């Protein structure tokens, strides 16, 4: 029962990391460079999963997205499908829990880029979109990358919220942290150790690669 858990974890984490990366970057830009009402409230709300116990986050997700949930009930009426106890639920749980790590780090990184560089790009006729990709992001990329790696690690280790919303269905929603728990409870020490080792290796590799990248890239020299 090692490979199904690894397969589920890799699927869930890779999809969640892509969503967290895109959504987190957009949120970070909005929060760092735009003024709008309720800005700090939005920041606080999205940061909540960082401080709440994951089971509480999971509980709110059930309230929102469960078959009888606030949004989930509409979805069920319309399509007859519910997200609860599917691998997509595990993605949602991981995304919500990991998102604050990404957007907090990226927001700080974008805020540290001096606006004069962006203004200089505007005077050279560049749109905000092009300026973001060619000026702001390259100057902020270390913080953005750090946020992405932390989110990846957090999504990989996600347990509580996933268990609440996605359950623990082997081969379907049982990710590695859930499989480890089950193995320990069942007294299968060898399996628990193997899973823990794989999880540790993936995390170490991610952090190591990040450090390597941020030291090698030419843009890191300034």
């Amino acid at each position, binding site marked *: 029962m090692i490979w199904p858990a690894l397969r589920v974890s890799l699927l869930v984490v890779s999809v969640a990391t892509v969503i967290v990366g895109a959504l987190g970057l957009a949120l970070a830009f909005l929060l760092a460079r735009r003024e709008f009402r309720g800005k700090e409230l939005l920041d606080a709300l999205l940061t909540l999963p960082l401080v709440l116990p994951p089971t509480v986050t999971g509980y709110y997700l059930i309230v929102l997205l469960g078959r009888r949930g606030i949004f989930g009930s509409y979805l069920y009426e319309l399509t007859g499908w519910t997200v609860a106890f599917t691998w997509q639920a595990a993605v949602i749980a991981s995304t919500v829990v990991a998102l604050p790590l990404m957007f907090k780090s990226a927001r700080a990184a974008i805020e540290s880029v001096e606006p*004069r560089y962006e203004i*200089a*790009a*505007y*005077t050279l*006729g*560049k749109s905000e979109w092009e300026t973001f990709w060619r*000026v702001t992001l390259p100057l902020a990329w270390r913080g953005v990358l750090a946020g992405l790696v932390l989110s990846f690690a957090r999504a990989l280790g996600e347990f509580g919220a996933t268990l609440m919303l996605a359950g623990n269905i082997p081969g379907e929603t049982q990710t590695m942290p859930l499989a480890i728990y089950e193995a320990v409870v069942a007294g299968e020490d060898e399996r628990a150790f193997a899973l823990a080792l794989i999880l540790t290796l993936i995390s170490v590799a991610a952090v190591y690669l990040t450090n390597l990248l941020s030291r090698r890239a030419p843009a890191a020299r300034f």
Partner: protein
Amino acid sequence: MLHVEIRKRLDTEGRGTFTLDLNFDAPADGVTILFGPSGSGKTTTLRAIAGIITPDAGRITLGEQIFFDSARHVNLPIQKRRVGFVFQDYALFPHFTAEQNVAFGLQDSGGKTRSARAREWLAQLRIEEAAGRYPRELSGGEQQRVAVARALASGPSVMLLDEPLAAVDAATRSKLLSEITALQQQARIPFLYVTHNHAEALRIGQHLILMHEGRVVQTGAPEEVFHRPANAQAAHIVGTENIFPGRIVAHREAEGITLIDLGDGGCRVAATYNELPPGAPVTVGVRAEDIIIARERVTQTSAHNVLSATIKRQFREAGRVELIAGSGGVDFKVSVTAGTVETLNLAEGTSVYLLIKARAFYLL
């Protein structure tokens, strides 16, 4: 011609509000100087023209094109105004090489590649060899050239230069001024150049807008504004500047000074160290307010220059007295209070000593 007619209330930290209320023109023939003490709103004016900040009311037009018109609710975004902005600290993109910085603002055209055209611009500003270097590997003068090249390469319809020589050494300043003049004549678009330095203004300005506390005090040719201020306020803002031709004599690098002969060579002064070769001709400026008068030779002083001089003439105006003190064939204008003249018993023919800090000399 660039026409600027704007009002803008600004909140300055701890100093209450400040209102920019301006009306001036900058023609396409020649460099227009925006001159005034720091805090008079020069940089804010450039930012309003570029569209970085929005005025409360008024009009900004460039020929037929309307950048901003509060009555007609026109406010072109920065990107559409096509201004070449040379920032005070250059704002070169740190993650791009010099060539990439210049190429960034170039439009794709059917002919040569963007990098080839970027190198042409660098060649025109004589920093071709810096093409592959990053901004942090460039000297202040080189960064300045890249910034000018980047702004001009983007094909602007107006150039805005915000104290571009503030962070450049004396040896580079003079060369850059000549190049900016030449580039203006080639581009034939309005150049608006912010400075608070007389020698710079006189050297490259055809027109001068004198600003004070957000308003235009006087406009005209730089010589005219400096020598014939329209009123007491204008006179106070321009101050009085001595400007002499000079020649570099020698360097004392360890002491941090450079010796310069003024005029025909009878007057030798010490200025802050620079890297101009000995024998090089320079223009030397020193403000009349920066010269101290003493009746006796002062020995224990931090001023590098203690010049023996004779008072030749004096002019009184509203509590201030302007003295003309001759030293070694050079006439210094010195500005003192009427009280000083009484206390020191100064009159025409009196022998005095002029105390001038090395830093007070500004070289071009």
